[in-house]
């Protein structure tokens, strides 16, 4: 993915999430959602290193991964509005969206639930002799689930083409990593499964992209999985009801200063991959695209009521 497009996708994610937050505040959206403001570099950095035919699985905090993989913001927004034009036809909602056509195998409401799914998708790829890879996004909290350990073990034994990409945003809901994880880094757990464990600055697009690029090359060579830990921070609460009593405003300000989007912009400007005019224009265009996605969602129909009873079985 070329740098300007990566920059655009990071803005799409940021503005999509901010719009969702606003729409909840206005009572336009129902249910819940988990926003990834501040984590755009890990989503886009990872997907930038992938081929279009590679796969990704995601989490409850999945809008960014989906948009980074090439999801259409109109159809994501329509899903949040519960509309037929949404990716899951309004049956899934924020935590349950997929687009198999672009290799996005689904956000997932169960913490860690996507980890064996990604591993099994990698098994299917290996069995059919393909050279695609599967990126499995998950959070620090999910690395404490049993399936994380089971799946890494099997993927290592069978040299499956999967990249375990942990976005360590320092808190599992309110629980800080140091109270929940017995080693300093999630990546340290790779040692138990005899696979590479890599720690990167998750707010540095280039660091994430390089790590995933290397892991993908290794996976395509048949050498098996890699565990990548992106140290990052969600600049917003866990979900819409979070008052953030478990962390300080000072800590939030420190991470605000490491916002991945200005960092990426400045690097692109310095390298001449982006003009100052583009740096301004791209977020403006992204904002218009997000506005259009809301319009699209609002004017889309809800599935006919009868369809609530259909589609249980294939």
């Amino acid at each position, binding site marked *: 993915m070329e740098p300007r497009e990566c920059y655009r996708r990071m803005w799409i994610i940021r503005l999509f999430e901010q719009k969702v937050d606003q729409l909840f505040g206005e009572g336009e959206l129902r249910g819940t959602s988990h926003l990834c403001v501040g984590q755009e570099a890990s989503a886009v950095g990872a997907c930038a290193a992938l081929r279009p035919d590679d796969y990704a699985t995601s989490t409850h905090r999945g809008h960014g991964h989906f948009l980074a993989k090439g999801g259409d913001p109109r159809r994501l927004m329509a899903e949040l509005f519960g509309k037929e034009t949404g990716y899951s036809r309004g049956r899934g909602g924020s935590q349950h969206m997929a687009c198999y056509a672009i290799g996005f195998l689904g956000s997932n409401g*169960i913490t860690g*639930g996507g980890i064996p799914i990604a591993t099994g998708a990698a098994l*299917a790829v290996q069995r059919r002799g393909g050279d695609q890879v599967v990126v499995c996004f998950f959070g620090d909290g999910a690395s404490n689930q049993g399936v994380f350990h089971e799946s890494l073990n099997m993927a290592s034994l069978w040299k499956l083409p999967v990249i375990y990409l942990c976005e360590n945003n320092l808190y599992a809901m309110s629980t800080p990593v140091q109270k929940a994880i017995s080693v300093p880094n999630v990546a340290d757990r790779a040692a138990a499964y005899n696979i590479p464990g890599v720690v990167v600055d998750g707010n540095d697009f280039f660091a994430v992209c390089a790590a995933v690029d290397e892991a993908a090359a290794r996976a395509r060579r048949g050498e098996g999985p890699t565990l990548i830990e992106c140290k990052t921070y969600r600049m917003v609460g866990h979900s819409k009801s979070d008052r953030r009593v478990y962390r300080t405003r000072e800590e939030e300000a420190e991470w605000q200063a490491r916002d991945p989007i200005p960092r990426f912009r400045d690097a692109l400007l310095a390298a001449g991959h982006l003009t100052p005019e583009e740096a301004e224009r791209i977020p403006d265009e992204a904002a218009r695209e997000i506005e259009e996605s809301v319009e699209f969602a609002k004017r889309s129909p809800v599935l006919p009521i009868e369809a609530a009873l259909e589609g249980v079985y*294939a």
Partner: protein
Amino acid sequence: MPEGVAATSPAREMYFTEALREALAEEMRRDPNVFLMGEDMGVYGGCFGVTRGLLEEFGPDRVRDTPISEASIVGLAVGAAILGARPVVEVMFMDFVTLAMDQLVNHAAKFHYMYGEQARVPLVLRCPAGAGRAYGATHSQSLEAWFMHVPGLKVVAPSTAADAKGLLKSAIRDDNPVIFLENKLLYQSREPVPEHNYLIPLGHARCVREGTDVTIVAYSRMAREAEKAAAALAEEGISAEVIDLRTLVPLDIVTVVNSVVKTGRVILAEEGTLTGGVGAELGMRIFESAWDSLDAPIRRVAMPDIPIPFAPELEAAVLPSAVDIVLAARELVDI
């Protein structure tokens, strides 16, 4: 396969385990997407020998031994299935399915509906189930009622070797997750199995024996117990009709209700525990459709609501059997 083919076409005697193995081998030869995954399935041949010999024909990629990681074994199967593979997973004892419930209930069962019908999850979970071998409380359960309660799953529970083969082949070809019960006491039944290649569609109950006084509805091992009970009852002049459900989801309630309308009396027999069991659902469905045809209360024969005891004498005493069905039938026809 239409009903009765097993009895009328050329057949050979086979063990239940052999019939299952033949179904697996035929489907694996037919479709390279089918592969087996589970604990000790390769060299060992599966805990109960069902997959014995398949490693030699199909190799370790398609007869895949796994670590002891039930949750992720099933999770991997779901992930492989959504990309077009057709995994057949053996969970060594049905009791261990508890370890994989999240992947079954929150993932396998929901993906098709929840992702707007993009996903298909064609996986079979073979579950050696049931008591009677003194394996104790964690290696003897019949947990099928749980899975009837989860929309998106299918539940298959054959009672004969011929049905086991034809139903397993249909389960493998189904595009949905299927829980496939194999009662451990049936593994060593040796019975005729048709020689030709056949399928038995899911959702069609089989009338094992016609009768007029009482209907006995059962599945898996209890269908065999129902046959024995019906034979004993016949000697007492009681004419029992036996319906083998074959599959619990989809449920052939029409065949059940038609029989109850005819006999006016019904016994629901299962090996799982009584409360919230398969019989609870069946009884209510019968009552909803045929309450005015009932000449007597609906009777259930099931495991008491207890963990299954180890002591063989105790286990035998609580394990539902033909005797329990006979006693229930005698009471019902006196009403």
